[in-house]
């Protein structure tokens, strides 16, 4: 019984949240890796682009709510995804046409494009501030819980409760759909293969008749879908605060680099590596040990390796360690 309680405790406070957070990071990390693999620069506007897409979901959710439209048990925000994705892609393509495209034509070095993306980041932040402001917004509605701790305890008779938030299940479910569709597209369709070919060997791709403009267009479209959906899922699960999206760039980049930058499959797994590391290292295991250890051995301290204030330090350390020892990432696999 104590053993079961210990498992439920971990499931409730670490595994389920880590799977959720990991999915959100994974979507962002694939976005980073795609842009890096195809357009060949580190996009520092990643976090704010995710925020930009989410902003439209928030605004439209409020508008739909004001009209009395909702999605029943599910969050209204899910209805706004197509619109938010559309606005995001429109913004990305506009930025690409007027900013990135210029440097791409000039064949600027990747560092220069990365610096340009910092500029794009600041502009994007400013636009967001003008449109919606910097404050914290909740836009989750519908059924908040799939399973409440109390119900779980009543059903199982255990001491520990398991809470399953609807946002957790929605996040995991939507991520599986989005990511598997994307991998299917990249690996099985002609356009997807041409994207991978372009990323692998640009000159030969041109000699084979692949149109670089089309590759760039498709890349931004996929990036827009990933960025917006990742951002919305994160915002539903936590809340929408533009500054937090900027902060999330560190774990997102860490995930992309852990997975081997340019490798979408690695970025996907990298998201979970970072999420699990962050949550496992900052969780206080006291109660867990109280369940599994005999009373005489019970810990007196919190048994917490790091305070949650240091969670970004974990991403950062992983980033540095990977760059030092396995700069090509910890996963084998094809680049995009």
């Amino acid at each position: 019984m104590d053993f079961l309680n210990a498992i439920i405790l971990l499931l409730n406070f670490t595994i389920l949240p880590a799977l959720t957070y990991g999915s959100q990071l994974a979507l962002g990390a694939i976005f980073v890796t795609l842009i890096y693999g195809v357009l060949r620069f580190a996009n520092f506007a990643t976090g704010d682009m995710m925020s930009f897409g989410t902003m439209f979901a928030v605004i439209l959710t409020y508008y739909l709510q004001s009209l009395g439209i909702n999605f029943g048990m599910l969050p209204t925000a899910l209805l706004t995804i197509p619109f938010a994705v559309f606005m995001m892609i429109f913004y990305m393509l506009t930025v690409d046409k007027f900013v990135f495209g210029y440097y791409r034509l000039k064949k600027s070095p990747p560092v220069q494009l990365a610096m340009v993306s910092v500029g794009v980041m600041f502009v994007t932040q400013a636009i967001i501030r003008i449109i919606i402001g910097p404050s914290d917004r909740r836009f989750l509605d519908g059924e908040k819980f799939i399973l409440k701790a109390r119900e779980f305890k009543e059903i199982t008779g255990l001491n520990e409760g398991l809470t399953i938030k609807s946002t957790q299940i929605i996040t995991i479910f939507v991520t599986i759909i989005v990511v598997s569709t994307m991998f299917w597209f990249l690996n099985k369709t002609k356009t997807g293969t041409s994207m991978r070919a372009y990323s692998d060997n640009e000159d030969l791709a041109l000699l084979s008749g692949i149109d670089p403009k089309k590759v760039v267009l498709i890349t931004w479209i996929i990036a827009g879908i990933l960025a917006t959906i990742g951002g919305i899922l994160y915002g539903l699960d936590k809340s929408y605060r533009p500054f937090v999206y900027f902060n999330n760039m560190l774990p997102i980049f860490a995930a992309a680099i852990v997975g081997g930058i340019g490798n979408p499959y690695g970025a996907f797994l990298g998201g979970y590596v970072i999420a699990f590391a962050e949550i496992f290292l900052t969780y206080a295991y006291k109660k867990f040990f109280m369940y599994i250890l005999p009373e005489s051995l019970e810990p007196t301290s919190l048994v917490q390796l790091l305070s949650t204030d240091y969670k970004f330090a974990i991403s950062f350390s992983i980033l540095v360690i990977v760059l030092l020892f396995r700069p090509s990432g910890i996963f084998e696999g094809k680049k995009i």
Partner: protein
Amino acid sequence: MAFFEGNNMTAGYGNGPDIISSCTLNANKGEIVAILGPNGAGKSTAMKSLLGLLNLKSGNVKMDGEDISKFSPQDRVRKGISFVPQTKNVFSELTVNENLKIGAFLRDENLENVIKEIFELFPVLFDKKNQVVGELSGGQRQQVALGRALMIKPSVLMLDEPTAGVSPIVMDELFDHIVKIKKNNVAIIMVEQNAKQALSISDRGYVLVTGKNKFEGSGKDLLNDPEVRRSFLGA
């Protein structure tokens, strides 16, 4: 007038000096033409000019009598000119199958038959069709590169050192394949360092030195020309 010709081509990289000057090369269908010359002579540059990867300062490129000097490389590919570059001539992160499919990117019809023909030509590749090309041997990679270029069923095939870095046995095999391809009425232009072997399967050859035509003639004539032998064939 030849089927595919570059006439008096002068070109260089960017604003740099002319690398080839007044260089003339041509090939007819069903003919293998070898381009020989010392390292840095401008052989690769001449090929890139034929494909339009470099802008000509003067001269022209004609195919079947039509001046295609203003065509983009992609449009030339669409017209049936295939090119296997000297380096990075495969997609090393894609599988053999995917490499071939990308080769036929501009073709819409069913590719299965064309791919089957390629596998008949290069049976080794059939066993490796789902393997990533980066994991193949150098010789197998050259076959993938050739196969990729053949997927559009080109009428002009340009090969930049197709036998670079392969063993003598594989080299002979590759040359056999090239002869087979020529029999399908393809005009083949190839740059080769293995000059003797290349000339022995070539109908004609050119020797370029510092970007200019130095010698030209039938494969046999060049092989027997004492001056060519002394300076380029090492005997």
